[in-house]
């Protein structure tokens, strides 16, 4: 679960990035497909929606309803977009990654055995 320090957790980060990539009116399903396409792993719609809900609560995501077409039985579509706070959260995530990776080259890292 993401901490309360404004840095998104790893799945939160994936969802935020997918929303950012999609640009044009993203909603739950396209977010899900975007993550699947980029990560190659199956993602459940329940997880995406739950994460979107949570980030909505944190103010990283804003949403609006859009009238649906026939393929969805006329049901509304919930379009999401990043808020400035969401962008800030992504920036924090990237900064954290870079700080953690700074000066590290995987070739020089040797795994150590766990002590019993």
């Amino acid at each position, binding site marked *: 679960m993401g901490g309360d320090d404004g840095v998104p957790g790893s799945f939160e980060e994936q969802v935020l990035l997918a929303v950012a990539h999609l640009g044009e009116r993203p909603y739950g399903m396209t977010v899900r497909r975007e993550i699947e396409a980029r990560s190659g792993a199956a993602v459940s*719609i329940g997880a995406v929606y739950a994460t979107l809900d949570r980030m909505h609560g944190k103010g990283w995501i804003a949403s609006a309803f859009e009238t649906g077409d026939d393929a*969805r039985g006329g*049901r509304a579509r919930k379009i999401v977009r990043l808020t400035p706070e969401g962008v800030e959260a992504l920036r924090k995530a990237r900064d954290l990654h870079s700080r953690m990776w700074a000066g590290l080259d995987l070739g020089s890292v040797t795994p150590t055995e766990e002590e019993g």
Partner: protein
Amino acid sequence: MSGRSDGPPGLAGRLLDLLDREEARGTLRGDLDEEYERHVRPKLGTRAARRWYWRQTLASVPRLLGRRVRGVRFGFRGFNAAGDLRRALRALTRRPGATTAVVLTFALALGANVSVFSVVYGVLLRPLPWADQERVVRVHPDELFYIRLAGAQRFAREVTSFASVVPWGRTLFTFVGDGRGEEVRGGLVQWDHFRMLGVTPELGRGFREEDARSWPYDVVVLSHDLWVRRFGRDPTVVGRRVDINGRMRTVIGVMARSHVPIEADWEAWAPLPLDPEGVAGTALAINARLRPGVSIDQGARDMRRAFRTIWAEDGETTTPDELAGIRLVRLRDYMLGDVTKPLWVLMGGVLAILLLACANVANLLLAQGEGRSGAVAVQLSLGAPPRRVAAQLLAETAFLALGGTALGLWMGWAIVHWASTRLPAALPRATDIGVGLPVIAFGLVAMGIAAVLAGVYPVVRTLRSGLRHNLGAAGRGAAERPGRAASLLVAIESALACVLVVGAALMLQSFRALRHVDPGFEPEGAVAVRVAPPPGRYDEDGARTGLYDRISEEVGAIPTVGSVGGIMFLPMSSGGAWSRYRATATPPESPDDALVASFRVVLPGYFETLRVRRLQGRSFGADDDGEAPRVAIVNETMADRLFPGEDPLGRLVYRGPDAQTAYTVVGVVADVHQADLKEPSYPEIYFPYAQSPLSRMYVVARTHGDAEAVLAAMERAILALDGGIVLSRPGMVADVVGATVADTRILSTLLGLLGLVALLLGAVGIYGVTAHAVSRRRREIGIRMALGAEGGRVALRTVGLGMVPVAVGTLLGVAGAVAGGRVLSGLLFDVAPTDAATLLAVPLVLGGTALIALLVPAVRASTIDPVRTLRDE
């Protein structure tokens, strides 16, 4: 759309619609449908796509449910109840053994409580279905205190405190026709009997005044059970004419199943006449309803004044003491009097078991808490608020209690269900017993209190030791003294177990003593069948005598029957008849000069068959017939009372107020316990059947064969004489005697069981505390052994330390048993509540049990390997 065979599954869609209340626009379902149509089905095909749709739907359920309950999120600031409960549940499943032990202990104790309470509630606490039951009273409930209808009517005119005065007597209804004949016990009641109780029949009507104008009675009211059994719930039974005691009478009503008759075995009612002439010889008792605003004491004063006036008019004088001895009691208290104390004693017993269970659970939680204080310390030092940690620990206890409650309620229900067909016949209101709402409420409250008693202190302790712990020492052998709390619990357990075992031992001794009481006859090997001749054919005295003579002959001819006889009322079965007797023909100066005695009419061979010892004179013979002079046999008590210090043989006994009839005493027999084994024998006089041919007799036989086979053969032989005879069986006389000690037997069995459970729980508790103390002091013991202490001494010290709280608790328990012994006084027989032998023996038993429980931890302590212990450290 959902109708299409290649469309998304309609059921899954509807499930989403149902749950997706907040997003009324159905965005989730829309997304899924769209995805299904545009991407998933074209790629995977219909079948796989539909499976995909279901998977997605089900994966969304937790989130949707979570959104729905978010509005009612429980807990308060600093707490997250749902999270605490989840973590608690996880913590418990990690310790399946301890969790099961606690839940089972709670469940067993609660099950016992729920089952006993369901009886206490149904029988004692639930109000009787009468109007204003507090005002319904009975005048002096005593078999020897009876009144004739004329007297009762005078009494009713004399008193002013009662809204109604209702005399009643017991009677028998022999139903014939409609198949097998059947004899039913019931009441002969004044017509306003039901009105006085404030009850109405569920079918038809109750008695009216005009029903009492004719005698013999013309109408009857049936009980619900009799209606079901004999009339197959026929709703048209009201108005039907049925043959009862040889006359056609009209059924006018059926009482509801919930009706509680004033005598437990009544199944039918008939009205007493208004005119006392027809029932001049019938002995009656009196029930009454107090006027509103009149206290029972005022009513009693009024009642005594009325009796004094009536007796004075009859020229009888009564001393103030005698008058004061006439009691007025609430009918409810009288009806439930015999079972009230045993039930409360049992209730106390099971509550003690619940307390013991609490102590054991508290012990276990304390021991566990010590093991976890390190983990708690870590949580606290990482910044978890203590309130939060406490909440989680309490949540664990709450779960344990909840599990125990669910299982315990089920167990209680199962016990009640099982016992419902095995309750003693003497228990009134047995049909009112069940696990209803009040019983469940009791279970919940009892368990709530138990959970607080058992759970809160261990949580506080764990938290406190967690706070005290600094991280550096967490989990390392901080050797404390054996826990004072644990010792206290052991002491409490020992005290409770001691009280319970003393109670059980006293009851068991009473039961054993009762079994050794000489009933005055030999019930083993004797069987009895009640014979009611069909009305009409045997109304002549000679015909009746002839019938019983032939029955005796036929039964005596059965090969396995050794001897045969008969009696009007079998000893220790219900029923009795009383008269006043004097040794002189002159009228007495006071009514006390006449001796009230039970009289029983017997067939020849009765004393020999039941083996009633003959002390003097002879038995009845064939010569003592209607033509011969009237003879009687008296029991020892009657001989001593009527002819103190004199030879009773050949003396005359006068019967009735005017000494109309005189009998010559031809024999004296040993006293027979007439009511039960506890009651001493009262004066009794026997008459030969041929001289007083009453209609219904018990035919008794002594047999050396299989009792069932003999009973069947007897019934065949009797019915072969006349198929219209109505038979009912007490069966084996030993069972009749056994039934009179059933209350003591059941109570002593149940208390014995509770005593055993108490011992077991106590032993488990003592074992647990000591085993825990030993494992906690491994290091200390190891060091001492490394310094040269012998194993034997270590074991002895362990036992010694373990025994201290047991000894203290047992002493307290003995003191408690002595103080509370009075509770049992009315239930005990031939043993004092402060029986010295019991009070000495029980502590020894407790000590022995404790020793056995201490043995394992003691041996374990003595075999601690110092080297390994220290290396482990």
